């Protein structure tokens, strides 16, 4: 295979009339990557933080997500139950093993069945934390990790996402900066998911149908209190 590698790279250099081992050109490419400068950022989301939260909610709902706003972390269990009741769903959730979520007083709701861990085929609803919300397009940013398994974002029919308001940013570029800061020693999560509304397909006669393979519904609980204890970057 290394023969293929050399042949492809040699071919590229020949076609571009470039020399191997060109340190000046390499320094400029490495510099461009390490600076990761922003290109043009659309004005739409360059707003004060309050307006960014408003834009986030507006754009997420336009993408067919539903939203709810609560004041405190302690209000989340009730907000989850409200949602399950609204859509007449089984009172059963699969919780991401995130201490900020597992530490809530779920046991005060005896009718709600809680499990923690990765998604299983029968799960009807999951609750997961969001790393950021991007106002520009109403997009959630979820990072995989030991406390945030990715299957919870895709397998259950209902995906409930908890987003602290301080985690709402304007454009995508702000979210990337926070993600870079939050990772130690140049580590990077296996999966970064940008999620904009629930799963859909228009593959049959261009008719839009919700819930193709991923969740049929996406519900976002925005929490005003800054209490999830994760690094903000």
């Amino acid at each position, binding site marked *: 295979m290394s023969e293929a590698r050399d042949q492809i790279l040699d071919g*590229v250099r020949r076609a571009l009339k470039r020399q191997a081992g060109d340190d000046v050109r390499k320094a400029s490419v490495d510099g461009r990557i390490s600076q990761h400068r922003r290109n043009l950022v659309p004005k739409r989301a360059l707003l004060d933080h309050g307006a960014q939260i408003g834009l986030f909610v507006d754009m997420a709902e336009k993408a067919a997500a539903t939203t709810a706003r609560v004041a405190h972390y302690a209000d989340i269990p009730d907000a989850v139950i409200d949602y399950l009741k609204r859509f007449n769903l089984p009172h059963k959730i699969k919780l991401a093993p995130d201490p900020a979520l597992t530490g809530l007083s779920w046991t005060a709701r005896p009718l709600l069945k809680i499990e923690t861990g990765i998604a299983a085929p029968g799960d009807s609803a999951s609750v997961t934390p969001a790393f950021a919300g991007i106002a520009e397009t109403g997009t959630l940013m979820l990072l995989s990790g030991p406390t945030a398994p990715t*299957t919870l974002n895709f397998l259950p029919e209902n995906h409930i996402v908890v987003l602290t308001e301080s985690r709402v940013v304007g454009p995508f570029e702000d979210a*990337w900066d926070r993600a870079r800061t939050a990772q130690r020693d140049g580590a990077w999560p296996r999966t970064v998911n940008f999620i904009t509304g629930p799963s859909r397909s228009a*593959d049959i006669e261009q008719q839009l149908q919700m819930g193709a393979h991923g969740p049929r519904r996406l519900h976002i609980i925005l929490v005003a209190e800054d209490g999830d204890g994760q690094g903000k970057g």
Partner: protein
Amino acid sequence: MQATSRNFKKNVHAAINDATLQRAMTKLGFQAARAAAVSRLPEFDKLRDQARDIKNHVLENLDLYLERYEAEMTRRGGQLHWCRTADEARAAVLEICRRLDAKIVTKGKSMVGEEIGINEFLEANGIAPVETDLGEYIIQLRHEPPSHIIAPAVHLTKDQVADAFLENHRQYGKTRRLEEAADLLAEAREILREKFIAADVGITGANFLIAETGSSVIVTNEGNGDLTQNLTKAHIVLATPEKLVPTLEDATTILRLLARSATGQEMSVYTTFSTGPRRGEDLDGPGEYHVILVDNGRTALLGTEFQDILRCIRCAACINHCPVYNTIGGHAYGWVYPGPIGSVLTPALIGIDEAGDLPNASTLCGRCESVCPMRIPLPKMLRHWREKEFEKGLAPKPFRTGLKLWAWFAKRPRLYHFGSRMAMKLLGILGRGRGSFRHLPLARGWTGGRDMPAPEGPTFQSLWAAERKSGRT
């Protein structure tokens, strides 16, 4: 995939006379959706300039970006497989599947997968590939190739989908013929769920490769690509070298164009950045992460008049806005990529002698270039192919003789003008009665669908000369 581009003219006749296809093609709503999305983003055209510049920069330094990408992705536990040809790519995939004793392989949508015929190859080797994008699943059941690069089953009606499901889903105990799109989707969802769980290996494509982080990126609306990669022992990515971008910011700039140009969405529902296999403490994710980097003729386009085509991000805007595509659908083009992008890319990848008719399947109206988010000069490249086809003597004989005759006259302006004046006068006299011609000798194909108006008055050249003489210009 076996090409039938040689039969283009026959394919077109069949497509135009296929009533079911024509009914399916009237429902395309992509143009209006794109226009609305573009109008909501005032910076759209400036972003197109920047996106073009980003890709140009990468292509001009592709060797270095490939090396940097390789270093970053392997540092994070990924395995990169360099493949010159479709053969090498298929062998690399098979080797991984065999080592993991894979029986079922789920697949997200991948045009490179179509290009290298990975499904047929896996089947021939006793492994069952299952397409999971709804459109791809439908056409896999029907044993046909995609007709569009983002809407593979766009040539089908709901009834045809219902028939395919009824025939193929009996084995799962589904014996009722479904009428509604929602029910068809629900049934596919239920069946494919089992496949996701049972699969050993998941294969996806890649919209981008990112040098900064060594990540591959997929964009879907269904979430099938994510279930494909997260529920299996290994995630295999089929990618090509020109998918590289330097940084997350650069990918972001192009993502702002991609969904808007494709479906008119602000963002597709799922944009996923995958970097290496699951980490030590992760609870899920694939145990292995492989990228099959297949060239298949692309880097040979660097430094040629076709280099710009390597900027393509496969959004399908050119296809959606092409009057020819909208008339004949995608299958007539006879290979993986239809529409204007296909007419440029297909001759480049499988040869102009196989696909010489495709660059002629254009009126050069320019709509493709006007909507291309990466500002690829598609009409110019179609003309390049036409020149090459002519140089190689591949164009049909009457066409070449006619063109040579025309060129002989065109090099002799006086004779040319005299001749055209005479011809126009003659046509004018002959056509005076009806004002148009139903049939013209040597132009039966053209007059088959419309009448040729009879010329009126003097030619443009003589009007021009008269204007100049009278000093008004």
